[in-house]
């Protein structure tokens, strides 16, 4: 009768959609040119190690979430400090996705609508989503999953079927050696999108019903990583490394090229809807993480934090004066210097302390 328990499968589907999320909006590893797929794979591999680190932290103490863990092992003051930083990280990630969605809408669907209206409505919708809590959010992912899967499958079938793929764009492999590939993979691709799984340390303790969490998470992560590599490389195979690297929305441009039997034209509107859903899922997940963090820090119920935090997110999304600046911060500065702290340094610190403070078995 009790249907309010989150199952592992629901969490996994949420993780999958979260990883896909807004990733297909951008081209990963554009600097590696035709070897982007190698860069993404290397990034994914390193991301897998990060994921294993996160899972190891979770397995040490499966009942506590990220914030409670820091609080417990780092002490009251340092723990709260780090928790506040994490809340800031999640909030800022939400605001970045919000801005992405605003820019995407203005660029594609609504050219004449002021962006603040779109961003305002989006944050209202997202705040409403967060009001229901993470358990309902996982169920929403279960509902949306078939639609997302179906759309990506249609795109994945139609692009080769329209004869758009030029396999010669793949070659020569490793034209400039391994160095540029590694340079783009570390830390850029590791921290976006793969390292973002650190958020799920907040959600893992919720999934209590079902089988082995770690194994399911790892398997789904690998599948998603391969999927993202494939779709990322599709851009390069269709557009060529130069156009793909310079295009603002590469996969959208790729999808626009689909023309089949005068029926399957203009698939991009459909694809934009999927991008919206992906961005929305990402925003809702980060926002949920942030309000749960504030609840853990202050003890005030998370629902009360939605409105103030929503206002902050709304404000933060206007930080960048234009999209180029926004992209520069997001894809150059943040991925290299900010995100690794949250995705790698702090969890590693936590893990080491957990190992040291672990009561020794006699």
């Amino acid at each position, binding site marked *: *009768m009790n*249907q309010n328990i989150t*199952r592992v*499968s*629901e969490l996994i589907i949420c993780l999958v959609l979260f990883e896909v999320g807004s990733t297909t909006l951008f081209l990963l590893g554009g600097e590696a040119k035709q070897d982007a797929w190698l860069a993404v794979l290397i990034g994914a591999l390193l991301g897998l190690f990060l994921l294993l680190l996160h899972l190891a932290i979770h397995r040490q103490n499966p009942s506590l979430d990220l914030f409670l863990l820091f609080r417990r092992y780092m002490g009251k003051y340092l723990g709260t400090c780090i928790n506040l930083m994490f809340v800031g990280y999640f909030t800022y990630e939400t605001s970045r996705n919000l801005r992405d969605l605003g820019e995407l*809408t203005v660029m594609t*669907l*609504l050219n004449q*609508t002021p962006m603040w*209206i*779109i961003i305002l*409505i*989006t944050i209202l*919708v997202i705040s*409403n*989503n967060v009001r*229901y809590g993470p358990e*309902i959010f996982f*169920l*929403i992912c*279960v*509902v949306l999953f078939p639609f997302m899967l179906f759309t990506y499958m249609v795109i994945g079938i139609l692009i080769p079927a329209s004869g758009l793929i030029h396999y010669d764009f793949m070659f020569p492999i490793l034209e400039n050696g391994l160095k540029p590939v590694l340079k783009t993979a570390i830390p850029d691709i590791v921290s976006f999108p793969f390292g973002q799984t650190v958020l799920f340390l907040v959600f893992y303790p919720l999934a209590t019903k079902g089988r082995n969490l770690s194994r399911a998470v790892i398997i789904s992560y690998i599948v998603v990583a391969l999927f993202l590599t494939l779709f990322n490389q599709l851009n390069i195979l269709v557009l060529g490394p130069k156009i793909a690297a310079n295009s603002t929305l590469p996969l959208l441009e790729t999808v626009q090229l689909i023309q089949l039997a*005068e029926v399957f*034209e*203009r698939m991009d*509107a459909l694809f*934009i*809807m999927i991008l*919206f*859903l992906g961005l*929305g899922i990402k925003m809702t997940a980060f926002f949920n993480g942030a309000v749960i963090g504030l609840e853990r820090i202050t003890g005030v119920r998370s629902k009360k934090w939605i409105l103030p935090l929503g206002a902050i997110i709304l404000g933060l999304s206007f930080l960048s004066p234009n999209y180029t600046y926004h992209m520069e911060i997001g894809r150059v500065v943040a991925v290299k210097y900010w995100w690794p702290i949250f995705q790698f340094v702090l969890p590693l610190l936590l893990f080491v302390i957990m190992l040291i403070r672990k009561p020794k078995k006699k």
Partner: protein
Amino acid sequence: MHWMKTILKPAKRRPLKNTNPITQTPEPINSSLPHTLTLLHKILGDSPDFIMRNFSDSPSEPGPIAICYIEGLIEQNLLSDLMEALIAEQASKTSFTSDVHSTINALKQKIPTGNIKIIHAENQMIAAILAGNVVILVDGVQVALAASIQGGIRRAVEEPTTQTVIRGPKEGFTEELSTNITLLRRKLRTPDLKFASRNIGRYTQTRVVLAYIEGLAQPEVIEEAKKRLESIDTDSILESGYIEEFIQDAPLSPFPTLLNTERPDTVAGSLLDGQIAIFIDGTPFVLLAPVTFIKFFHSSEDYYQRYDISSFLRIIRLFSFLIALLLPSLYIAITTFHQEMLPTTLLITLASQREGTPFPALLEALIMELIFEVIREAGVRMPRVIGPAISIVGALVIGQAAVQAGLVSAAMVIVVSFTAISNFVIPSFNMASTVRLIRFFLMLMAGMLGLFGILAGLIPILFHLVALQSFGVRYLTPFAPFTKSNMKDFFIRVPWWAMKTRPNGISGPNKTRQAPHQYPVNSAKKERCDEPNKQK
């Protein structure tokens, strides 16, 4: 949502004024017959249908036995039998005062009625009279007898007017509770079919009966339903809608969390799925709970037709649900904001049509939808005789003439009428009404923000649907949370021999529906297959 709740909730709870004598504290019946008769006369007054009959030998002194009843509520033939027996009894005995218990028991034996009860309190006596019993009073005895010979005018069992089917039973519930329960009993001949009865409504004293099959329904759901029914304290229950609004899970949700049906076979099927049914006296509509979203798109006929065509029809219904919900808003969004999505030839056709129309697409759609809603409401309310006139006005003036006059585009008429027809495909009327309301909301969103607006409108609805529960069962089960075993009766209906279990999450302890290996066995074919083996 919160401010709405504060408005809808009264600030102070004032106790209900209790004026109905039935619900007041019980007082024992006075042993003096004239005293009791005076009391009855005082309470039930000079109503022309209230009859008090005293069997007396001489006109001056009152006899020892009296009967009271309300004329229209009882069966006249049975009444005359009863009176015959009473008169005979009175003639045979000289005095009734010797021993109270033997007198009443002797009298009880002689009365030719099956259902006869002994009543001790005055308010019970009045309730019995109002419920269609004949109350027999004996002088000097502190109790009364209530013989149930209910009768009077009632509607015959007819074909239900809503939820009609092509193949399947043609009988529907009536306003009479006992008839409805009989119709159900005829379908479910098991002692496990249980009823729990209760009178609700201070003035109406409406009988509300909870029906379930023990072992199939979840005990928690039964308890919860009983609790919710018991907490209702109002002056009247006239239709199942009253009960529905008092006991539903999300009182402010546009989505119904209880299903209503006029069909005994639907109720029987739902009880076999582990649901519970709530019968209300005075209405042919029975409530079913717990119910999931998809149940509103199932017709009882799905289980009688072949499984493949039923599955196809279910998908058609869901498709028309999406059309009814989204088509006008998609049309508005695409013609206003995203013309590039249309193929060029279609775009040119649409543009040439819209060239002469004076209003923007949103306004045009809103006007047309509102006009259609008006015609539809007129169709329900108007006298049947005027029907053809309205349909001519509706079809010709609003459809063709409006297009020819250049007020609306022909495409819009097509969109609105197809939406309207799609709306009628949804088998459940209250789900169809929900769709009607949400459609307007989505049209406004589409008119303001195009496809983005539609998505921004749909996402909160989706979250609401996922969070919604009906008696502890999630509304979108088995989709979210995903329940594999329930998929056999979801979009598709598997053949009956494959319908091995009852729906998970709804049904109780007994989940197995049938014995294993129910796949039809063709003995003739089997022999033919065996033959070559035998020859070897």
